[in-house]
């Protein structure tokens, strides 16, 4: 009996003590983008790698090979991993460097959970002045740099040129894009009449952020200061109404696909469901590859552009970006140096990452001949200048995107009045922000 009790206690101690400690030269890199070790686990040829997962895995493999004095432990998290990261920070077990959407930085920075990085980036030769305008905006709060930007991504107009030709919407081998809401609706009608297909392919069924990003872009183009106070949104405005009504008209007249979720819309555009798919930079590679396949709806007929300017006030596109941030934690000098060596390596290889479709975070890369030689990058490079994130002080942006999307979806589908949807969206977002700020004790 005593023996059993002893064995039980020993087992319990073993279970309780099964933690993981970090070596002095070890850094923990926490990232999303998934796991693809079967294909890239031992690859170091970055130029040969494809996809976000393949390129980041190969980059880190290469860094390991070139820096044998540093032990790099990679921890992949389910996208986007912020609940997990918050939990790690709460337990004092944060990783050394983490992938973070620039839009999420304010949530952590405002709680003093991130280290400012500008000075140390400069010290290793990563000059923030070399960040693109969009990237610099994305990682800067109150004059400090809180992350090293890795890319800028934005929703784009992915275009089926074969249908556009059929609809007479091509000039000089370029798509004719609208320059006002009225022109957009006219062209969409013309497109449908000629092709029998809806002008837009949209993931309206489960992509709440897509609604919000459309709204942000066209509010920005009207120079509407909808977050004049980063703690309050203003949506009950003529500018917002104009945008929602435009999308509602497109929906009512069957000028967009309906009831497709993200996967169906992504596949649908490939299979010729419509003329323009509103989705981000990450799909460029897949659609470019599809356009090279024979006898397909996109065969030799694909291009991509930023959102066209529908309002004269400003050329702007809502943008976000992926960045690398450093949680506040105790590190050995070796670990600190290792993190910055890794960041310098990633900055030096920013072109490779830009092959994913995302825009580079560095001006020198975006202006480079090798970047411009990538397909369609000339069309979208201006986003490095026109790409605009929400103002730096706005917190809980993921939740805000979802909330706005939940309200706009029924308004666009005609199940709720535009006025009521904007009222509810504004009220819910402000309520959320009020409670967030009340909880965090901020003024």
């Amino acid at each position: 009996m005593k023996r059993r009790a002893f064995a039980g206690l020993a087992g319990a101690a073993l279970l309780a003590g099964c933690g993981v400690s970090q070596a002095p030269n070890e850094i923990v890199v926490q990232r999303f983008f998934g796991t693809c070790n079967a294909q890239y686990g031992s690859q170091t040829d970055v130029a040969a790698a494809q996809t976000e997962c393949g390129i980041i895995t190969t980059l880190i493999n290469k860094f390991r090979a070139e820096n044998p004095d540093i032990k790099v432990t990679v921890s992949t998290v389910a996208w986007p991993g912020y609940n997990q990261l918050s939990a790690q920070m709460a337990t004092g077990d944060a990783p050394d460097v983490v992938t973070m959407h620039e839009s999420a930085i304010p949530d952590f920075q405002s709680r003093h959970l991130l280290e400012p990085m500008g000075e140390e980036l400069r010290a290793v030769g990563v000059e923030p002045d070399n960040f693109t305008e969009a990237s610099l905006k994305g990682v800067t709060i109150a004059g400090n740099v809180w992350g090293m930007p890795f890319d800028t991504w934005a929703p784009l107009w992915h275009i089926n040129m074969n249908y556009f030709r059929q609809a007479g919407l091509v000039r000089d081998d370029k798509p004719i894009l609208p320059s006002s809401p009225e022109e957009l609706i006219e062209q969409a009608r013309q497109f449908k009449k000629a092709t029998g297909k809806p002008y837009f392919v949209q993931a309206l069924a489960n992509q709440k952020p897509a609604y919000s990003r459309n709204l942000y872009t066209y509010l920005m183009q009207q120079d509407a200061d909808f977050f004049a106070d980063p703690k309050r949104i203003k949506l009950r405005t003529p500018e917002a109404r104009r945008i929602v009504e435009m999308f509602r008209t497109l929906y009512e007249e069957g000028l967009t696909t309906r009831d497709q979720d993200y996967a169906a819309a992504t596949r649908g555009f490939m299979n010729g469901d419509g003329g323009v798919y509103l989705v981000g930079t990450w799909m460029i590679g897949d659609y470019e590859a599809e356009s090279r396949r024979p006898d397909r709806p996109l065969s030799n007929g694909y291009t991509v552009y930023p959102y066209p300017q529908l309002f004269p006030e400003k050329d702007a596109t809502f943008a976000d970006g992926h960045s690398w941030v450093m949680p506040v934690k105790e590190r050995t000098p070796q670990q600190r140096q290792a993190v910055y060596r890794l960041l310098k390596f990633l900055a030096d290889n920013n072109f490779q990452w830009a092959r994913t479709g995302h825009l580079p975070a560095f001006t020198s890369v975006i202006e480079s001949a090798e970047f411009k030689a990538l397909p369609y990058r000339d069309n979208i490079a201006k986003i490095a200048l026109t790409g605009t994130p929400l103002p730096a002080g706005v917190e809980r942006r993921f939740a805000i995107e979802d909330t706005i999307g939940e309200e706009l979806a029924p308004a666009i589908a005609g199940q709720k009045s535009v006025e009521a949807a904007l009222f509810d969206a504004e009220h819910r977002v402000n309520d959320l922000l009020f409670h967030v700020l009340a909880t965090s004790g901020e003024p």
Partner: protein
Amino acid sequence: MAAGSMVGRTLSDRLILVAVIVLGIVMVAPIVWALGLSLKTNAELMVDTSSVLHAPYTLQNYWDLVIGSPVFRWFVNSMIVSLGMTIGVLVLSSLAGYGFARLEFPGRDIIFVLVLFGLAVPEQAVIIPRHQLFSELGLHNTYIGLILPGLSTSFGVFLMTQYFRAIPREVDEAAMLDNATRFQVFWRVLLPMTLPAQATLGIYTFLHAWNDYWWPLISGTNAQMYTVTVGIASTQINFAESAGLGFLMAQAIFAALPILIVYVFFQKYIVRAVSGGAT
């Protein structure tokens, strides 16, 4: 007459049988579809998911999963956590159930009601204080940290209490007449009689522990301590639903295998648990 034949059944029986078959197909179809998707390449599925209906098929997604991630480590973690939790729940619920059903002590009924209140408190309501408590105790990223929260199950205590109450007290008295101690009565006489309830509770607990995602996500944050649900989620590429559908489905099937096995072998007890017929 062959078993299951429609001959000789009443019309209502036949209608029920047809309805059950239809419902069965509806329930099984998504699993079969997921299995089919898991046997196709991601590239094929990105263009058209109906390709699942015809060859070629491949095991590449399973191979990628097995060699591309520490999935066996996560399996071991899940097994330790699920079995640990199951054993712990059975021990604690049996002891508590016996105590509430058989022992007289001050405040017993009030404590029992308090335990039942636990059924009404969702995990989300206590997750932050629990997380802080476990931080103070240094239990995150340990097996104990993953197992402990699952041991306090109001449902288990309630189930076992009801089961013990259903056993006639004469059984205890007869054992005591034979000079059995109270613990011997519990251990040698009553506990064997509760085996059906133990099986039900054990399976229920195992399934819950295996499928749990929320607590392991924020407590076992180190990749070495991932359970299979958290680990497999971490391997998903962004937008897996379009660009990595085959791999995603292989992950789902792989993670579900132990559960499927438990269902196949213990379905009698699961049905009993769900129907509340353990007593």
